[in-house]
């Protein structure tokens, strides 16, 4: 019986962690990362074909891969190939996009703001 009581107390300790780490009602209003990403890409999505494969360029480095995954999630069923070698290329930049040089071989078609851009290959019509 003592073992059962100790067992229960240990479990209740962890239940305290479950409760303490649960999001507070006040934090629910901020929206989650995927929801914000869906909103960020809503405008460029309307300018892209409904399906097929387009290119993708974004910030360099491993941490920016998450931004690529979010862009793909927002734009599905369009496939985003992480490469600039396509006639249409989605740009996704988190930091100071205005001062950034355009990727070589691409021309800016539309800047949708908030770091989201649409490029076209210079040799494409």
């Amino acid at each position, binding site marked *: 019986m003592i073992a059962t009581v100790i067992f229960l107390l240990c479990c209740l300790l*962890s239940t305290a962690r479950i409760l303490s*780490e649960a999001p507070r009602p006040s934090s629910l209003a901020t929206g989650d990362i*995927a929801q914000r990403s869906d909103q960020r890409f809503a405008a460029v999505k309307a300018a892209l074909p409904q*399906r097929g494969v387009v290119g993708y360029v974004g910030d360099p480095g491993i941490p920016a891969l998450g931004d690529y*995954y979010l862009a793909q999630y927002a734009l*599905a069923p369009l496939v985003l190939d992480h490469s600039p070698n396509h006639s249409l290329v989605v740009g996704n930049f988190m930091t100071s996009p205005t001062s950034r040089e355009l990727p070589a071989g691409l021309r800016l078609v539309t800047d949708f703001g908030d770091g989201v851009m649409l490029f076209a290959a210079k040799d494409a019509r």
Partner: protein
Amino acid sequence: MALALSAILLLSCGWLLVGLGWSRQAPLASDLLLRVCLSVGFGLGIFSAVFFLSLLFHFTRLMLVDLAVLALLLAGFFVLRTSTAITIVHGAEKEGNVPAWLHRALTAAFALVLFAALYAAIMRTLAHPHGDGWDAFSIWNLHARFLFRGGIHWRDGFTPLLPWSHPDYPLLLPAAVAHFWTHLGNDATAVPALISFLFTFSTAGLLYSALSILGGRVPAMLGGIALLSTPSFIEQGTSQYADVPLSFFILATIALLCLNDNREQNDPSHRYPGFLALAGLAAAGAAWTKNEGLLFLCAIVAARLVGVVRENSFGNWMARARQVVPLLAAMAPVLLLIAYFKHSIAPPGDLFSDPAATFHKLVDPARYWAIIKWYVKGFFRFGHWLLIPGTLVMIGFYFAAGKEADPKSQAGIRTSVLALILTLIGYFAVYLITPYDIYWHLRFSLTRLFLQVWPSSIFLFFLCIKNGNDMCGADTAVREFEP
């Protein structure tokens, strides 16, 4: 409204499928809970398979297909169900022998833990409607979006251009989500969130109800408390990953095997393949949920074959076949579906892409040592418990309470323990040959792999331990379900 109707349709399909494997018996309270929890998982499995087949065969009237499946199941339910009595030996407390204070403490703790888990799950779901963590929207919900939004081009989502989205992962979750979305006409975030929620609490309900039948109410409550107070179970359960759904199917397979073997031990004269067939379906559900489930399916089949050969006299082939064939027969249709998906739709996985490098890794002792160290660390850490690891608490409880001298469902327990050990060995082998950096891979997946077998481990632990009934002075009882 459409969501509620779809949910009713799903539960009806699941209920009828589970009913096909059950006898025509009057449901008792704990059996009712067991069947409802199984119905959730099996219903989602049916929804997933129906949606996938509808895409393959270009059926656009999904509701008509659903109704046809429902009608078939209904016909099977009334025509094929057996009326054989099922006799199960189980622990039943005599309420008078359980100290009142302990009973009250257990009930209060169970209620507290359940409400805390429900509260945390709801808050986490509201805070992260698309799922909490990269895998939710880079794998599972992304695949669901491709299936739903892609129309006739749904295969685009399974292109080698997106290797990070693991396009070779099976489709139980994404196709079930897309099925709901098709009924709704939009890709509401409520659907994957609700499915995650259902899987989480159905796993807890399944654990409680199966332990209640086979062990008694005290171990059932202890098991339920152990699972629902595991912080990472609630975190993962609401993250919209596939690990908790997989844990559901692993537990369902093991619980049904134990029910079957308990019945076999108690009443070998009556043939009753229902539980075994449902166990096969549950194992196939695991394989249709995640690649690790395929590993578990192989492990359970191997363990079952070992058990059958060990426990039957040589030469008695018919008896052996009866204990394996229903399991395999029920798996077969889903395995065909998985084989088609892997062969014709999904690009090859990355695990065996470089045989020379794989061999080199297999003979590198440093990799073995690294995995062993992480397994030991993970054993104590994976639940994200506060202060005292749950695994340590259970080891302490084992030494304090002792092992059941003659646990019920012995054959089922042995088979299940062997299957879980083989599954963990399989995970070990995958880490050995992983094409990724081994430390990165261990860091980001090992705790989830342990979580996959955690509900089943709790189930087997409380079946084997001398806890509830003996501790509280209760004895065992035989319950017979008459037609």
